[in-house]
């Protein structure tokens, strides 16, 4: 199994084997007791919503970092209230770390280990952000301009 290189959670690491989305949702979620699932780019992340509470780990796979579907998957699951670990796996690159984090990822397991100094810089790159993604807990620039 690929190692988690960066994790921004205080709870115990989850290492349950992740099942596919299809296996998890099959026959009304009755076939498996799995608590971890892996989302591939073509999967509909919303299929998990009825049993989101059962999950402690969601892996989102990036076969190529230039396929951005995983960003939407992660963010909409966070919007639906998922609070467990959201782990980016696969072709996870330095330059996207901060953006992944803003979409709700809090663990990163790149295929190839990243240079830790470059990664640290990338996570800390943006002091401010233009959008409220909600799931990253950050205040958008417009909110700072107009404090409530």
């Amino acid at each position, binding site marked *: 199994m690929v190692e988690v290189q960066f994790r921004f959670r205080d709870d115990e690491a989850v290492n349950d084997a992740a099942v596919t989305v299809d296996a998890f949702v099959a026959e009304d979620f009755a076939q498996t007791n799995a608590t971890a699932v892996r989302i591939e780019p073509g999967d509909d992340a919303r299929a998990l919503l009825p049993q989101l509470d059962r999950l402690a780990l969601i892996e989102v796979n990036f076969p190529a970092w230039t396929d951005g579907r995983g960003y939407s998957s992660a963010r909409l699951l966070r919007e639906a209230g998922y609070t467990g670990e959201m782990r980016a796996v696969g072709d996870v690159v330095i330059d996207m770390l901060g953006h992944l984090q803003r979409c709700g990822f809090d663990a990163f397991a790149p295929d190839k280990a990243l240079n830790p100094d*470059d990664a640290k810089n990338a996570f800390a790159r943006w002091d401010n952000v233009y959008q409220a*993604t909600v799931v990253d807990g950050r205040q958008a620039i417009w909110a700072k301009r107009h404090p409530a």
Partner: protein
Amino acid sequence: MYKYDEYDQQMVDTRVAEFRDQVRRRISGELTEDQFKPLRLQNGLYLQLHAYMLRVAVPYGTLNSVQMRLLGDIADKYDRGYGHFTTRQNIQYNWIKLDETPDILAELATVEMHAIQTSGNCIRNISSDQFAGAAADEVIDPRPYAEMLRQWSSFHPEFLVLPRKFKICVIASEKDRAAMRLHDIGIKMIRNDAGEIGAQFYAGGGMGRTPMIAPMIRDFVPLDQLITFAEACLRVYNRYGRRDNKYKARIKILVHELGRDEYVRQVEEEFAHLLTQPIEPPMAELERIMAHFANPAFETGAADDLDLSDPDFRLWVERNTTAHKQAGYIIATISLKPVGGIPGDATADQIRLMADLGRDYSFDELRVTHSQNIVLPHVKKADLYTVWKALDEAGIGTANIDTVGDIIACPGLDYCSLANARSIPLAQKISQRFGSAEKQAEIGELKLKISGCINACGHHHAGHIGILGVDKKGVENYQLSFGGSEGADTSLAKITGPGFDEDGVVDAVEKATQVYLANKQGEERFLDTYRRIGMDPFKEAIYG
């Protein structure tokens, strides 16, 4: 116009630092070219046939004189003394060195400019009506909404790696001067029956190898839901746009394959969900931005007449100016299409001269048009002759806007690694063939557009006359088409028949204009006559 606050400035400064770091990692070998490519593209840096090309963003085509001046200085310092204004209202430099790009970006940041998302599979620079804030026919200035969308789309973490590039256009006039419905999302600001301003959304338009006109997907989005609705459109596209074939990856294919109604249903469902998320900026933010676009201090009671005794000036006024909303003022379009010139190119000196004229005679504002020209939006009529004299002396006083001389052309095989044929020499030949002012006046409005490959950067589908360069067994061949339009009456051009060589297509264009002149009724433009009489008479003349 919009002025950065400390946050906006910090965003572009951070980007410069990020890009500098990426270039460092590329040069050190930490990043391979394959890994670096998508990163540099997100910053407008292409590798072309002979050198790197850097595309600098001009948000919604609006510039001040300090920015324009710096664009000229960059052309001198880092390029070969000229720049190329593009159909996306940007400017690009064709002879850039990789290791100098971070310094160029740092210089741009000092005048609130950047190259963010001018390329790559992300939301590109937002385009708009080049006459925004000046046009007599606009409902409201569209640029504050474009600026809202600029900020929202800059480094939007969910939408940085879309299936394909994504172009948004915002207009606010009945007359569409920005080809709004040929964008991935077109937005038309309107006033509804209750007198409220809102946004009408169109989605799935585009040129490229499968040109499509965007259908309307919502007739009215209230201003306090604008960003949320855009976000819903993008999320559906990011999740379901095709990624198996780059030629089928634009949103137009998704809308076409799902059908407009099904795409709308999915967007509305996502929209209803996103409305529960606090992602919409408050109206106070829109008001803050709008304040930046307040009218300049127009002089009231300025003389409304022009001395047209100089016949060359008269011709230029007829061709290159447009009515202004303020009495005593006029909108002047500077043609970057001198006879035999390269469409959209300007020398560093010409760029600096236009900057000075913008500063002295247009309330410090200039615009870039999607037809690759420059606009001085607010010229006092009393100053117009002085302005034209200065332009004419610098070789950019040509009176040919919207005529056959005002050709749109992509860079083509002279620069572009995607091109199949050269566009520039053909544009130059046509421009020379129709070089005389009399000939141009006789033919009147005729929008001719040339693309050097099927990607259609030269907008040939939207040309009254469109020309597409293809490679036919190693020989450049040009396909001719008629009847395209990008205005309120948007239509796509139809191919005439077999293609031509370079000289052959110039002859065919000339024959087509003769057919038009022989059949023209009243005030008909070439396009009107073509629409009335159809393709056959033209075909007969060209191939007969």
